[in-house]
C-alpha cells in the first residue's frame, strides 16, 4: 500500500505555537515523523549579548512565556557561577517560591490542553479556571500574571511582603480541593484509561538513550530532577518527593504532572512559611571574565544556560538549551507505530515548547558557499580595486 504524508501545521488550530509536523502514514498507522521548527526563532542569544547582564534577564524571560522563571533562574545561576557568589538565603527562598508557582501553572495549563485534545473540553475549562487562582497568587507576589521580572543576577528584584503571605497561602490551599476532584476524575475515568493507557510508550532505555528530561523521563522510571540531583535555591531545605512512575505511557505522564502539582504546592507553602529574614540582593556590580553554567528544573525538564563574560558589562556568549530540545527526538520512538488519532496526544504529551527550543538555525549548505552581508561588501570592494588596477589608477 502506498504511504501517504499528512502535514500538520505550521499554523494549526491544535497548536498555539507554529511548528510543522510531517507524519508519514500507512493506512492508520504512523510510520515516520519529521518535525520542522524555526517559525519562532527570534535570535535571543544574540539579543542577550547586546544587553548588560542585568538587562538580559528581561529578554531571557521572554524566551518562553510559560517558563518565564526557569530561564532567568538558570541564567542568573550561570552569571553567579562566573563570579562565583552565593545569593542570600531569602532570595533563594523567593526564587523557589516563584519557580514552583510557575510549575503549578504550567502543569495545569498542560492538563487543560491535554483535556482539550482528547475532547474533554470540560476538563480544559475547569483546569484553566483553577489556573487563574495560581496566576492571582503570582500577581500578588510579583505584580505580574506571567513574565514575573523577579530575577536578577545576585538576588531578586522584589521582596515578598509578610502581610501578603496569609492571603497567598489561603489562595494556594483553596486550589487543593478542586485539584483533588480533578485527580479523582482523571484516575477514575474509564474512557481516559482506555484512551491513554498503553499509548506513546517511552521505555526506560529509550528515555536514557534519548536523554529525555523532566516529567517525560520521570514517567518512564528515570529518576532525574535537577532539584534533587544538584539542589539549588531552597530545594534542599524543604521536604518533597520526586514523582517517578514506571511504564512511560501518556497516562503516566498525566499522573506525574498532576502529582507534581501537589509537591509544588507543598514546597511553595513550606517556603512561604519559613521565609528567612535578610537581604534579597547582593547588588553585583562587575562580572569578571570567565565562564559559568547554570541549570534549573523547568516544568518540562532541565533548562541549561552557559554564559561567558569577557570582563565588560555584557555577556560575550550566551547559550541556552531548553528541555524540549532533548524531549522532541523521543517522538521517533513514541509516535511511530501508533494511529493518527493518538498521534496528537502523544505529540502533546512531552509538553513541547517550541519557542524555548528554537535557539539556533543550522543551515546545511551541502558544499555551496553562502555569502553574508560582510562577504558581499568585501567582494564589491575587491571588484573596485580590480577595476582600478586594470585602469592603472592607484
Amino acid at each position: 500500500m502506498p504511504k501517504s504524508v499528512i502535514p500538520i501545521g505550521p499554523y494549526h488550530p491544535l497548536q498555539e505555537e507554529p511548528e510543522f509536523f510531517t507524519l508519514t502514514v500507512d493506512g492508520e498507522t504512523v510510520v515516520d515523523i519529521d518535525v520542522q521548527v524555526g517559525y519562532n526563532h527570534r535570535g535571543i542569544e544574540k539579543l542577550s549579548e547586546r544587553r548588560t547582564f542585568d538587562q538580559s534577564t528581561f529578554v531571557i524571560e521572554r524566551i518562553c512565556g510559560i517558563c518565564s522563571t526557569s530561564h532567568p533562574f538558570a541564567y542568573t545561576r550561570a552569571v553567579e557561577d562566573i563570579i562565583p557568589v552565593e545569593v542570600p538565603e531569602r532570595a533563594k527562598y523567593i526564587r523557589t517560591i516563584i519557580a514552583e508557582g510557575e510549575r503549578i501553572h504550567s502543569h495545569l495549563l498542560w492538563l487543560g490542553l491535554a483535556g482539550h485534545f482528547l475532547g474533554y473540553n470540560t476538563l480544559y475549562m475547569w483546569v484553566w479556571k483553577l489556573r487563574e487562582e495560581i496566576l492571582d497568587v503570582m500577581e500578588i507576589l510579583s505584580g505580574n500574571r506571567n513574565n514575573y521580572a523577579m530575577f536578577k543576577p545576585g538576588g531578586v528584584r522584589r521582596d515578598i511582603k509578610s502581610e501578603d503571605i496569609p492571603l497567598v497561602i489561603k489562595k494556594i490551599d483553596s486550589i487543593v480541593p478542586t485539584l483533588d476532584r480533578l485527580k479523582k476524575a482523571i484516575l477514575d475515568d474509564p474512557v481516559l484509561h482506555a484512551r491513554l493507557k498503553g499509548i506513546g510508550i517511552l521505555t526506560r532505555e529509550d528515555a536514557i538513550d534519548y536523554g529525555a528530561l523532566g516529567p517525560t523521563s520521570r514517567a518512564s522510571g528515570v529518576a532525574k530532577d535537577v532539584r534533587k540531583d544538584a539542589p539549588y535555591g531552597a530545594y534542599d531545605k524543604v521536604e518533597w518527593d520526586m514523582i517517578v512512575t514506571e511504564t512511560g505511557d501518556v497516562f503516566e505522564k498525566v499522573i506525574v504532572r498532576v502529582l507534581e502539582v501537589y509537591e509544588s504546592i507543598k514546597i511553595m507553602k513550606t517556603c512561604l512559611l519559613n521565609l528567612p529574614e535578610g537581604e534579597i540582593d547582593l547588588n553585583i556590580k562587575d562580572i569578571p571574565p570567565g565562564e559559568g553554567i547554570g541549570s534549573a528544573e523547568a516544568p518540562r525538564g532541565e533548562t541549561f544556560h552557559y554564559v561567558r563574560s569577557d570582563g565588560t558589562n555584557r555577556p560575550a556568549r550566551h547559550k541556552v538549551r531548553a528541555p524540549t530540545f532533548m524531549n522532541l527526538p523521543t517522538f521517533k520512538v513514541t509516535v511511530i507505530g501508533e494511529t493518527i488519532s493518538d498521534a496528537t496526544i502523544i505529540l502533546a504529551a512531552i509538553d513541547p515548547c517550541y519557542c524555548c527550543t528554537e535557539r539556533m538555525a543550522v543551515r546545511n549548505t551541502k558544499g555551496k558557499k553562502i555569502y553574508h552581508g560582510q562577504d558581499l561588501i568585501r567582494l564589491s570592494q575587491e571588484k573596485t580595486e580590480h577595476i582600478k588596477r586594470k585602469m592603472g589608477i592607484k
Partner: protein
Amino acid sequence: MKLTLKALLKSPWVFHLSTGSCNNCDIEILDCLTPRFDIERFGMLLAPSIKHADVLLVTGSCNRKSAIRLKRLYEQAPKPCLVVAIGECSLSRGMFIHSYNCPLPLDKIIPVDAYIPGCPPKPEAILAGALKLIQKIKGNL
C-alpha cells in the same frame, strides 16, 4: 456601514496566529475563552481556520520565516477581515526590535485595525480591546 461588516460584528470569529511569540500572549488569548473571562459571551469564538474567521489575532514579532506565511494567510482570509495586533511584540517588536530575524513590525506587513499593548496584555485588556474595536466599527467611538 457595509452589510458584510455589520453582519460580522454580531459574532466575530477569531483566528489566532502566532508569528514568533513567547507563548504568553497566546496563552492569554486562550485564557479569554476560559470561564473567568469567557469572551464567548460577546459572541467571539476561536475559529479553526482563517477561512472561517472574521478577525485575525496576531501575536509575536513576525520573523523572516513566518512573515511570508502571515501574508499568505491574510490573503486567504475572506474580506472584510479585521486584524488585531496583540502584545508589544506585534505592535513594535518590543524587545526583539534589534533582532536579526525580525525585520519588520506587523503593520508594515499587513494592515492592522487595532493594537492591544502589553507584554502580555492581561485578558481584561484583550477583552476591552476587542470591544473597542467593535464599537469603533459601529461608529460609536
